[in-house]
């Protein structure tokens, strides 16, 4: 591409702009290319792989990050992982996998690195003007695209709680994304805050490395091991879906009973939601570390006082390091909030079928979802649907209008009602219901047009 002046926007015709070259962005590029679209993918960093790449300067990886869903449930449907890989590959293997995917399908030539999108705005009805943030010393570039797919993910803006007295605390306070190296915990007294998968993993890391590990969570979770009944846990549970509903719930209860009983016995609060409503904790070591006393399980923090932290149950601890594994806030800075259906009180986007903008037909978001199962295949089917949709929109406006109505009615169905008190789980969907919705959407899109 040549240099463009900042005045005139360069028109890329029907090409599609993909924002982000992480897992979701790469899958989007591949599926768009497969459907015959020209694609420009913009990546603000200088490497691909998004959160899986430790060279990404914003990478949220913590020491020993591994998949929490098993290989067969996480791999991209049309590009499986090598079958000699372990059941739960490490972050390094995930990066190798994504690089392999990009090389296999020749995606790298469509990616513009070091190009952050400062904003996008709808022009000429359904087209978009995209402004690429200038690199040092050059003017901002403006381009026009037929459609935009946002694939920026939701693991970039740390969600940091603030407790009374926290600003006067003299020890080290880190977010999980700042930890990077497990040796920072060695020999220290560590307080890990947060009951999600990252909090549990870091607590287990501290259990073997730190001098003392205290773990504070504010609500009940499902603590599942990575294996159940001799199989990867997510596979073992998903497999039951082949059975009739009542047998399934019977068997599911039987499988989960022991673990629920154990966490109750260890004094943990019972979860206020079903295990499919949000990401369950998948770590077999956690309960064992609690059982051998190397992790001290505590309720929510009440306040900080000098070098001490007090918990809701009145206990106190004097930590050297506090690690907040409190997750991330979704933030799509480059898109006007209204286009994503963000309304006043909540910063969370309200998308149609969790992917289409409620305002503009040619704007979609891939991977802004927590389905409690592997996200890559979900993103594959999302972008499969999005690229089919863009194709139909081009060729058959009448079908497109009908489809639009269906999507609006579908989207009402994925709301998970028992998200409880945790606003962080606003992105959660029940994978089973969401996939069923995707099946209906894709079926409509792939039907031969009625003659």
């Amino acid at each position, binding site marked *: 591409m040549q240099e463009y002046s900042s005045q005139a926007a360069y028109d890329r015709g029907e090409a599609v702009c993909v924002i982000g070259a992480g897992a979701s962005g790469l899958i989007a590029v591949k599926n768009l290319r*497969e459907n015959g679209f020209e694609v420009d993918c913009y990546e603000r960093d200088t490497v691909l792989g998004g959160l899986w790449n430790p060279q990404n300067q914003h990478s949220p990886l913590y020491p020993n990050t591994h998949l929490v869903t098993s290989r*067969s*449930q996480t791999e991209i*449907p*049309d*590009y*499986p992982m*090598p*079958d*000699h890989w372990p059941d739960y590959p490490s972050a390094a293997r995930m990066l190798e996998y994504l690089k*392999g995917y990009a*090389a*296999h*399908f*020749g995606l790298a030539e469509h990616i513009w690195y070091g190009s952050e999108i400062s904003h996008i705005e709808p022009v000429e009805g359904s087209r978009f003007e995209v402004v690429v943030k200038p690199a040092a010393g050059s003017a901002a570039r403006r381009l026009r695209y037929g459609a935009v797919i946002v694939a920026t993910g939701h693991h970039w803006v740390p969600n940091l709680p603030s407790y009374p007295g926290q600003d006067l605390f003299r020890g080290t306070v880190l977010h999980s994304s700042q930890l990077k190296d497990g040796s920072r915990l060695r020999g220290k007294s560590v307080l890990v805050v947060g009951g999600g998968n990252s909090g549990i993993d870091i607590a287990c890391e501290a259990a073997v490395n730190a001098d003392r590990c205290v773990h504070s969570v504010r609500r009940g979770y499902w603590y599942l091991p990575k294996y159940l009944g001799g199989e990867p846990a997510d*596979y073992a549970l*998903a*497999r039951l*879906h*082949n059975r009739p509903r009542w047998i399934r719930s019977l068997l599911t209860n039987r499988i989960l009973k022991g673990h629920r009983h154990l966490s109750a016995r260890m004094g943990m609060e019972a979860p206020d939601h079903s295990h499919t409503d949000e990401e369950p904790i998948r770590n077999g070591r956690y309960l064992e570390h609690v059982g051998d006393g190397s992790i001290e399980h505590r309720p929510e923090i009440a306040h900080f006082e000098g070098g001490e932290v007090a918990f809701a149950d009145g206990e106190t601890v004097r930590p050297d390091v506090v690690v907040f594994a409190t997750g991330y806030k979704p933030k799509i800075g480059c898109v006007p909030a209204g286009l994503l259906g963000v309304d006043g009180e909540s910063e969370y986007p309200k998308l149609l079928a969790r992917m289409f903008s409620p305002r503009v037909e040619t704007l979609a978001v891939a991977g802004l979802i927590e389905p409690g199962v592997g996200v890559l*295949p979900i993103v594959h*089917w999302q972008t499969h649907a999005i690229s089919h949709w863009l194709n139909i929109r081009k060729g058959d406006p009448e079908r497109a209008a009908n489809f639009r109505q269906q999507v609006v009615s579908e989207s009402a169905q994925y709301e998970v009602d028992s998200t409880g008190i945790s606003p962080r789980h606003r992105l959660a969907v029940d994978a089973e219901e969401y*996939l069923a919705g*995707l*099946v209906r959407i*894709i079926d409509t899109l792939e039907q031969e047009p009625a003659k």
Partner: protein
Amino acid sequence: MSLQAWVRRTRTPEPAAVEREIAVIEPADLFDFEAQDDPDASPVLCCTGDGAGAAAFGVLWLKRIAGSGRYAAAVSVRGQGNTPAAPGGVEAYVHDVVQAAIAIPRRAVLVGHGRGAAWTALAAARYPADALVLVAPQKLPKSLPKPVGDPRVLLVVSESEAQSKQTQAVTDAYGVAPLTFPGASEDVFKGPGAEGLLDAILSWLNRKD
């Protein structure tokens, strides 16, 4: 592959992993000044129903494909050649073909011969092959699955088979006309017509349309 087919697959046990024999000849391996190397041409992965597996392609096919500038590979599915036998049946053979395909650095053309044609046709419904070539197919599934990624398809059958019901079914399913060759199914690896047949396939692959 449809979403439903994928969901079904994630809920059935994966075939046991085996160490697969994969024979590879790259254009640079030929030490031939004349040979062209075309880094943009998609690699070719071959698979046969013959018990020799990858070795069946070694004598003529891989060298000639590499000679045309393409990365040439052939896989022995479980029980063939030097790949250990393992249970799983057709589903596992298809798994072996897909696994061999993703191990190739770039998106590959799938070439299947005999019963191997059935496995590659099924593999193409799971892996977006660059093109699908079915040579003298045998035991094809009754309803052929739609390939993903919309690859070009070539059907190659012996002259005696050209009018058969199965050939008719395949040409209908993919909407292609068969390319015919004289002789029997085994003649594609040796015999007088083999080189000409292979060159016809390669020139079809090189065709841009």
